[in-house]
């Protein structure tokens, strides 16, 4: 039984088209041109309980809009969705008590107060019993290693520490579904890894369902078994992370280390040369050609070392975004 069902969900915005120049600005006072932007153009998805899913896509692809729809912040233009049996945009109080939304750029803690005061307020708002509250808080603070920071005003915390506190605030009421929008944005590598490890551990332990959007491929590869690529408001790919590389990159990278005195000339006929740093040369080559190309190179050149690898995930995904045709406007996030 799916915990989240999305069926043909669409969302379009009407945005004011501002034109350049003073004359147009004055004209805009009287009559305005509006343009319809289709942020989400028919997304369908089924999520089983306990899945950890990543939404990938370029800026304006409709990821955040989809999370907003699922958390009930906005109404859809058409289509249906159900999360734990609730229609999100009806905003039932019961629904609101059972999920959480964390937006990396938004702050929900009281700035001038220690985080524990915000947590106390959450305990009251979400009707958390004192024993549950204490147990959850102890568990979360020790997992995230922030117990000693509970009494410090939020404004004095670092960005990473604040994000940890945000996560605690979002998880205090033990939500069954968690939406994370760019949870590691702006964090340094160590803080990112801390958050990743925490999320991984927490999700395994509690078996909650998490939908995450992120630009950091590290987040995604560390956490999610399933990846949904969204671009132009449509699902372009839904499957495992490694499947993206297999399915969308018909290319391999070949790294050569040429022997002393060898020239790289002539290598361009095997594929696109990406980097020359003599004696090392890296080039791209279509997958079915790899064995033939390797044989030919070894016959023609003196080679000290040779390695064949998959192109980096970022690159595959970037080319996947790029290849999505049919251009419409980008959506406000």
């Amino acid at each position, binding site marked *: 039984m799916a915990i989240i069902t999305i069926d043909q969900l669409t*969302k379009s915005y009407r945005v004011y088209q501002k034109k350049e120049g003073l004359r147009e600005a004055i004209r805009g006072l009287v009559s305005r041109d509006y343009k319809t932007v289709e942020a989400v153009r028919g997304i369908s998805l089924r999520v089983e309980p306990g899945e950890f899913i990543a939404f990938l896509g370029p800026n304006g692809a409709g990821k955040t809009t989809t999370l907003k729809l699922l*958390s009930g912040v906005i109404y859809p233009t058409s289509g249906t969705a159900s999360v734990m049996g609730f229609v999100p945009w009806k905003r039932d*109080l019961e629904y609101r008590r059972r999920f959480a939304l964390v937006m990396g750029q938004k702050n929900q803690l009281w700035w001038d107060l220690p985080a524990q005061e915000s947590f106390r307020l959450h305990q009251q708002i979400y009707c958390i019993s004192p024993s549950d509250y204490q147990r959850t808080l102890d568990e979360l603070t020790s997992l995230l290693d922030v117990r000693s920071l509970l009494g410090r005003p939020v404004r004095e915390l670092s960005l990473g520490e604040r994000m940890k506190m945000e996560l605690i605030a979002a998880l205090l009421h033990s939500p069954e579904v968690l939406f994370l929008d760019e949870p590691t944005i702006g964090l340094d590598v160590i803080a990112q890894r801390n958050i990743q490890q925490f999320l991984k551990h927490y999700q395994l332990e509690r078996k909650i369902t998490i939908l995450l959007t992120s630009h950091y491929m590290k987040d995604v590869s560390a956490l999610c078994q399933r990846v949904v690529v969204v671009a132009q408001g449509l699902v372009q790919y839904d499957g495992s992370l490694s499947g993206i590389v297999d399915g969308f990159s018909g290319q391999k990278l070949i790294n050569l280390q040429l022997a002393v005195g060898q020239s790289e000339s002539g290598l361009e006929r095997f594929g696109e040369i990406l980097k020359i740093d003599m004696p090392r040369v890296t080039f791209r080559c279509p997958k079915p050609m790899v064995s033939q190309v390797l044989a030919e190179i070894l016959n023609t050149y003196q080679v000290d070392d040779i390695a064949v690898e998959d192109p980096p995930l970022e690159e595959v995904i970037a080319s996947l975004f790029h290849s999505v045709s049919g251009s419409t406007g980008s959506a406000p996030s």
Partner: protein
Amino acid sequence: MTDNFAHELRTRWMITKTALAERLAYRGDFALGTLMRFLPIITQIFLWWAVFQSLSPSNPESARISGYSFQDMVAYYLLTMLGRAFSSMPGLSSSIAKTIRDGEIKRYLVQPIELLSFLFWSRVAHKIAYYMVAIVPFAIVFFLCRNYFTTPWLDPGTFACFIISLLLSFCLGFYLECCLGLIGFWMLEVSSLLFVYMLMQFFLSGHMFPLDLLPEPFSTLVGYLPIKYLAYFPAAVFLGKVTGAALAIDMVMLVVWTAVFYVASRIMYRRGLERYSGFGG
């Protein structure tokens, strides 16, 4: 049902407590800001003294402006300060507009709390924090100026009306500014609108001078506006300017205006959210 109600009450108390703690986080700045607001009293007293002196250079104490002596004027001014300590809502409208513009409003859609109720109880906390600090200077000023209060001590009924008018002016001021801030759902920038409102409020609430100083027909017209309840009305009640049937009518009108802005703010909030969420479009 009662369980639910008790939960609601506890939530409000918790919001008030948390907001109070936040308010007191900056003790120094807060106390200084509160005390600074008492400075204009001195300039106001001198200003009115100069006005009365020019009316009657030999005996300013005997001069009258529309029935107000110099003493009455100072007493009136001090009472409007007290009224505004209840009804003024510094930063409320602009913070609501900012919440909408920045998208912070999402929080009130995702979490099981409601924006207007949350803001109301935070504001109650702000006021409590303010009175805790301001009570001392208020007491000193009223004690120093005790001779300016020439009207006989109020009867309990009128005094009760005075207290109720102060409390209701808090609610009226709160919901009025909520409505202004909620315009932010339709207009992204409301600061010039707020500026015009503040200017109007300064004159029409009676903060600048007693409204019965205005010539007709303005005096009557302003008397119909809700803004007069924010400063003029409580002071006028205390000074015995409004009595009998007029007092009863004004008290009812104060309740009606408060209810009108309460309902208006709820409707605007609901409509605004529908607009924000792109309901039906």
